[in-house]
């Protein structure tokens, strides 16, 4: 029963707590300063010793006031953290709900792509018709193209180029001699044909 405290001693501890506190090293670490073994902090641990000396004349808190301020700030800090966590949770919930809301809105909205669908179906039909073409028809078409008189086409192209007239300088600078040959032949033939008629 030696460990049991008398009512008077309990009363002493409640109303004069500073009387029983131990000396705590004064550092800037708030957690090192805090002792929860029944002791109350006596110093403003957020202010360095030098700063405290400078401010000694301006503010003069007692040990109790400082401790209560610290405890209050700690509890307030906890509330702020809690509020922050709650706001983050709310934000996450809103983000999570957003796709669901978006999907609901999309399903509620009537969207039609009729012109595009029609155009695509027409293009598909054309493509299908093209695919249905007989291979022999394609071959015949290719044959017709190949049967074209290449020489005549080249001649036409040459005369189109020289529609405005052929200069001697142009001819003298042509690297491919077959072009002047073709031009001379065509013009000589035209000259001879005009005399014969």
């Amino acid at each position, binding site marked *: 029963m030696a460990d049991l405290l008398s009512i008077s001693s309990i009363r002493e501890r409640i109303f004069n707590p500073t009387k029983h506190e131990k000396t705590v090293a004064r550092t800037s670490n708030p957690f090192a300063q805090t002792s929860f073994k029944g002791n109350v902090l006596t110093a403003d641990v957020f202010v360095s010793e030098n700063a405290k000396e400078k401010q000694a004349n301006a503010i003069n808190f007692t040990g109790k006031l400082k401790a209560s301020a610290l405890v209050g700030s700690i509890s307030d800090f906890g509330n702020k953290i809690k509020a922050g966590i709650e706001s983050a949770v709310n934000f996450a919930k809103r983000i999570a709900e957003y796709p669901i809301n978006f999907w609901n809105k999309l399903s509620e909205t009537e969207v039609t792509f009729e012109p595009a669908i029609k155009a695509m179906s027409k293009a598909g039909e054309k493509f299908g018709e093209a695919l249905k073409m007989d291979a022999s028809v394609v071959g015949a078409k290719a044959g017709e193209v190949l049967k074209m008189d290449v020489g005549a086409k080249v001649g036409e192209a040459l005369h189109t180029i020289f529609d405005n007239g*052929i200069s001697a*300088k142009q001819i*003298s600078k042509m690297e491919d001699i077959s072009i002047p040959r073709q031009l001379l032949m065509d*013009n000589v033939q*035209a*000259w001879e044909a005009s*005399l014969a008629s």
Partner: protein
Amino acid sequence: MVDKKIVKNVKNIIDGLAMHQNPESVSVLEDIGTNSKVDEIREMTAKALVQKNMPESLRVVITNKGKGINDMSTGVAMCTINELLSLEDKAEAIRILEDTVENHSDEEVRDNARSIKALMALS
């Protein structure tokens, strides 16, 4: 009546081939120009071949029967001779004329070459 544009085109093509550096231009002129039925075309072609002043081009108008100085058309032959006489550097033409006079199988061609050679010596 021949179109003036065609005449101009033929003249410009032949003149262009006369200036052309490619030796194949001689064969183009020989194949198409000197074998034409039109005297004017043969005349223009012969002049172009002489102006090139190359052994191959001069040989065409000097040694071939029916072409250049040996053309059936007097106008074409006279025009070719006149062009030969107008050459600044006649050395190559004289060398070919001498070779033709000495070695050609056709007497008419040899006689024509001899006459032109004499004219060139006097000019």
